[in-house]
């Protein structure tokens, strides 16, 4: 495992070897900062272009590229005015909806998802295959009753539930095969595979039956369900990294599982939780297809406003679209700044090994 470091008295040696532990060599610094700055340029240029376009008049956009405000063209706030002054009501409503829906669905998702992820790490589940099959069949029967025969969903749910409970004790036990944690995990992530375009009409009809169309609750529930697999999968690895000795010692002290989870495990995994929360917030904030169909006017969210800027045969209104894109980023940046502190904190500096 020993390597031969470069001799320190050569130029190359001095350039590429670190002066001390935890520090970088000069050569390393050049490479590292070079990479950082070039990637930053790659990231920031499109954003710069978006900001600059929001200040342009239509004629400035269409004639050819102009780069610098006040140098190449006169910046004009017409697009900003249109969205934030004259059309403030029309912009604020989706903005408010987006914030509420994204925050609520993300919090719900993070809570339910991390609990489930923790359970899948520490507890071994062995639900019988038969019971699962029976449950699925009961749901299918209920869905068919509501969809095809037009039975009221509450009645169908009650009947299906009763049948399931009755049969579970007898038929369910017949099949000995059981399903393991890995299978449960895979089933969850497989929910994300089907593209939303194919499930959107059935989902629409589901919510129509529940009379929840164009409500905030419908979108909050949908986003929570859709993003749960991601939370569970990501948090699984972060929870698995928490040393089990900590939990075992707490258990010996008599703490309940809930206490262990909320007071010991979760704080230790907060870097992962922060990253996951941020990701899920972004996914909910930017989601388009479900928002388009499950909302018409009352619960409309921001991505629809972006799409509305493509005015079909009247052209894309690049200037106003850029304004919408910019105002959409602001809350997310704020959340990212808040959460990134948690991601940055290092963990476990010898709590157990020491």
């Amino acid at each position, binding site marked *: *495992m020993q*390597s031969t470091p470069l001799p320190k008295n050569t130029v190359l040696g001095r350039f590429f070897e*670190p002066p001390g*532990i*935890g520090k970088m060599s000069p050569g390393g610094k050049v490479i590292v900062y070079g990479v*950082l700055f070039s*990637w*930053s340029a790659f990231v920031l*240029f*499109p954003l710069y*272009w*978006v900001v600059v*376009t929001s200040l342009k008049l239509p004629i400035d956009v*269409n004639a050819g*590229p102009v780069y610098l405000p006040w140098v190449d063209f006169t910046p004009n706030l017409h697009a900003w005015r249109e969205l934030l002054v004259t059309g403030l009501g029309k912009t604020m409503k989706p903005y408010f909806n987006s914030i509420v829906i994204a925050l609520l669905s993300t919090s719900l998702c993070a809570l339910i998802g991390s609990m*489930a992820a923790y359970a*899948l790490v520490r507890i071994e*589940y062995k639900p019988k295959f038969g019971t699962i099959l029976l449950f699925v069949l009961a749901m299918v029967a209920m*869905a068919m009753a509501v*969809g095809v025969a037009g039975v009221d969903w509450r009645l169908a749910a009650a009947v299906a539930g009763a049948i399931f409970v009755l049969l579970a004790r007898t038929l369910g036990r017949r099949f000995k095969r059981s399903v393991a944690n890995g299978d*449960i995990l895979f089933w969850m*992530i*497989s*929910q*994300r*595979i089907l*593209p*939303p*375009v*194919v*499930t959107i009409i*059935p*989902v629409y009809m*589901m919510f129509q039956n529940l009379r929840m169309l164009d409500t905030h609750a419908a979108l909050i*529930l*949908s986003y929570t369900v859709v993003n749960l697999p*991601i939370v569970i*999968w990501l948090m699984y*690895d*972060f929870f698995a*990294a928490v040393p089990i000795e900590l939990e075992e010692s707490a258990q010996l002290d008599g703490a*309940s599982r809930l206490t262990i*989870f909320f007071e010991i495990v979760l704080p230790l995994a907060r870097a*992962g939780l922060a990253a996951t929360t941020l*990701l899920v917030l*972004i996914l909910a904030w*930017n989601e*388009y297809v479900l928002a388009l169909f499950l909302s018409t006017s009352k619960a409309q969210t*921001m991505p629809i406003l*972006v799409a509305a800027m493509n005015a079909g045969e009247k052209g*894309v209104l*690049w200037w106003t679209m850029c304004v919408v894109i910019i105002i*959409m980023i602001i809350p997310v*940046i704020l959340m990212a700044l808040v959460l*990134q502190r948690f*991601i*940055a904190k*290092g963990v*476990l*500096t010898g709590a157990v090994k020491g």
Partner: protein
Amino acid sequence: MPSVFSEWLDRQSRHLFIMPAVIMILVFSIFPLIASAILALSRVRLRAGGYKVTFVGFANFKKQIFGSEQFHFLGTFGSISLLAWAFTIAVGALLIWWLLRYLRGPVWWLGLIGRLIAAAVLFGIAFMFAATLLSGTQIGTLGVTLFYVFVGCTAQFAIGLGLAVVCAQPIRGRTFFRVVFFLPLMITPIGIGYAFRMLADTTKGPFAPLWQMVGLGDYAWVTSPWAARFFIIVADSWQWIPFIFVVLLAALENVPRDMVEAGHVDGASHSQIFREITWPQIAPVAATVILIRVIEAFKLVDLPNIMTAGGPGIATESMTLHAFFAWRAPDLGQSAAISYLLLFVTVVLCVSFFNLVILKHRSAQG
């Protein structure tokens, strides 16, 4: 706290923790799954105030694989070149060797079936590539999607990992870089599509003078299939590398610092430390992030739709875009069939990845 209740709660905790998630996902996913499966097997028309669904069996699937949409889905089959035959035979041999190796050990019937299906699908895909790409004809949406997924995700993972490693170093302005690198993911995908459409425009876009200087002023990337696909991967990478970056960064931050410092003290070089200490710690998270990214990549639709509308011709059309166009027609049955084909391919690839990489790693870890 009443101890009896808290004790009961603790005993129920194994259900309490997982049931909300399971029930929510189960309830919300069953009906759409079944409904869309029914749609895939039917012909849907609008009649007399509602949708009329007529069962047609596998007709929609047959149309995609063997029928009039074959060129669209699989590609145009030309005369198969020698190179293509060689490639196909090589892949076939590899798959047979893999199956035989499994048969030598303990065999479980479900595992064997799974492996056979995976081998069949992989062989089918290899043959499709051989008969279209390697024979000089055009690939269909299945091939394009696989291109986006494999080439795109590999590049994204490599770059994301590199950035995370670099950002985990002691550098000045970490917060600045972390937030900046994370920005692209925050922008709504539709916005990114339009922004990159603007950027890549050779007449109105900011790089227009650059192209003209280099002499490419009259070249339009939208007329060349591979250039168009490349641009879409560039836009896709710009958007999704932050995802990989942030998760891997969190994982790297989780690596106990004392282990790394011990490695430095022992005199190991950076690459050795990475290989022996850091990588094993972050490998599970890396595998998870790859799996999630791959699943999302299969669903790529906004970028090709906005940037090129699937053009030139059908060169950049992904399977989800193919399904979307059908859905708009509205040809709901065909759209569902294409989505289920996508589901099938994704599941086969992901299950293989999951079983052969993730589970093996987890069982090795103990």
